[in-house]
């Protein structure tokens, strides 16, 4: 790229009514993206109405900047704060599991509370990990559209890194099957993310949690029998569901580009 496009071509590009052929337009736009000098030439060849429009945008921008937050801190600090806002939720999750273990020890006749809690245990953490209200980094994500899914997955992995060992420990203390504790947990996490692409992660977590509690956990407490979906025999089905949903997340990865718009 040693030669620059002629001023006449740039002026025609700046004039919206002027027709520019396809090939010229393509190479011109590619060039302008890389060449600050030619962008300067373009700025010099704009018409009055363009400048008026730019002034109007600048005025609106002033108002927006005055109303909104200052530039978000560079991501490391933002991430640290994010991690701290997760800590209370993770502590709560672990505490609830510990209570379940204690209750189990006191009343062994109850259906396994740990198994009943396992699917919903990671949901609060996952929901908080991607909530605009709790996330000082959401503007950063808005500025980097492709980062949505990768970032959500990293945070989810962080949540699981705490919840899964806690669950494993809890289920080994109560003697319930490890597979029916961990597989539903993973399946629900995947389901939350997959559904989150459509309705927002937080709403997905609340919805799935409510469905589980109402449809499975409460009836199990009332009848005092472990529901069939949590019998060891159904672990293969849970594994399959988790895999399918994880696959779906990757297929629909695009949805997460705009995740911030429906927190």
């Amino acid at each position: 790229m040693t030669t620059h496009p002629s001023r006449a071509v740039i002026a025609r590009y700046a004039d919206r009514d002027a027709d520019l052929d396809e090939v010229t337009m393509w190479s011109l736009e590619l060039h302008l993206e890389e060449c600050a000098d030619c962008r300067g030439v373009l700025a010099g060849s704009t018409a009055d109405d363009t400048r008026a429009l730019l002034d109007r945008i600048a005025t609106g921008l002033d108002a927006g900047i005055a109303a909104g937050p200052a530039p978000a801190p560079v991501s490391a600090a933002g991430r640290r704060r994010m991690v701290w806002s997760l800590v209370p939720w993770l502590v709560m999750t672990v505490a609830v599991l510990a209570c379940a273990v204690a209750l189990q020890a006191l009343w062994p006749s109850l259906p396994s509370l740990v198994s009943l809690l396992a699917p919903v245990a990671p949901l609060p953490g996952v929901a908080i990990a991607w909530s605009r209200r709790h996330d000082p980094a959401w503007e950063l994500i808005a500025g980097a559209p492709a980062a949505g899914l990768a970032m959500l997955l990293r945070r989810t992995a962080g949540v699981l890194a705490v919840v899964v060992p806690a669950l494993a420990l809890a289920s080994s203390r109560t003697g319930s099957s490890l597979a029916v504790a961990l597989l539903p947990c993973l399946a629900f996490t995947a389901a939350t993310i997959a559904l989150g692409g459509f309705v927002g992660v937080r709403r997905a977590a609340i919805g799935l949690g409510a469905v589980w509690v109402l449809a499975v956990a409460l009836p199990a407490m009332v009848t005092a029998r472990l529901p069939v979906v949590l019998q060891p025999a159904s672990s293969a089905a849970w594994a399959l569901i988790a895999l399918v949903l994880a696959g779906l997340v990757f297929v629909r990865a695009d949805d997460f580009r705009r995740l911030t718009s429906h927190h």
Partner: protein
Amino acid sequence: MKRNLSAADEEELVRRTAAGDRRAFDELYRRTSPWLLTRLRRRCADDDVVADVMQETYLAVWRAAGSFAGAATSGSAAGWLWTIAAHRLVDAFRRRARHNQVPAVQMSEAVAPAAEDEVLAGRVGQELEQALLELPREAREVLRAMVLDGFSVRETSLLLGVPESTVKSRARRARVALREALS
């Protein structure tokens, strides 16, 4: 920090914006906004929509400059700006699509450059140019959105108002034609 604002390149301006330097941001706006506005106007005929997209884009730049600065050295500030603006434009089209009024700019009928434009640098090779020329207009539209503007299939389908499957088949046709031109 105040010195050499006019000597700083755009990447430097973004980094200073990330530190909360409003003057660097204003300088960035002054330098890049005519280009970005022109490019958006070549894709959307409604000035109100373009103005909204511009405003949202630069607001995101102001607030998220740190994510560019944090992303180390890869990529130009202009390319980053365009990525943000392009996604905001698709958002605007998505909102508009519900009201059935999508004011996209039609592509020009002329494909080959006029003689006086031949001096352009970085010209696409002759064979490629020929191949582009022979592509149906619909396929060229898809190619422009996906190759030049970096849109995904879904975004392209929103922008052009055609189903995703149509975008895919047009892209396939364009790819085959361009591959043949290159071989």
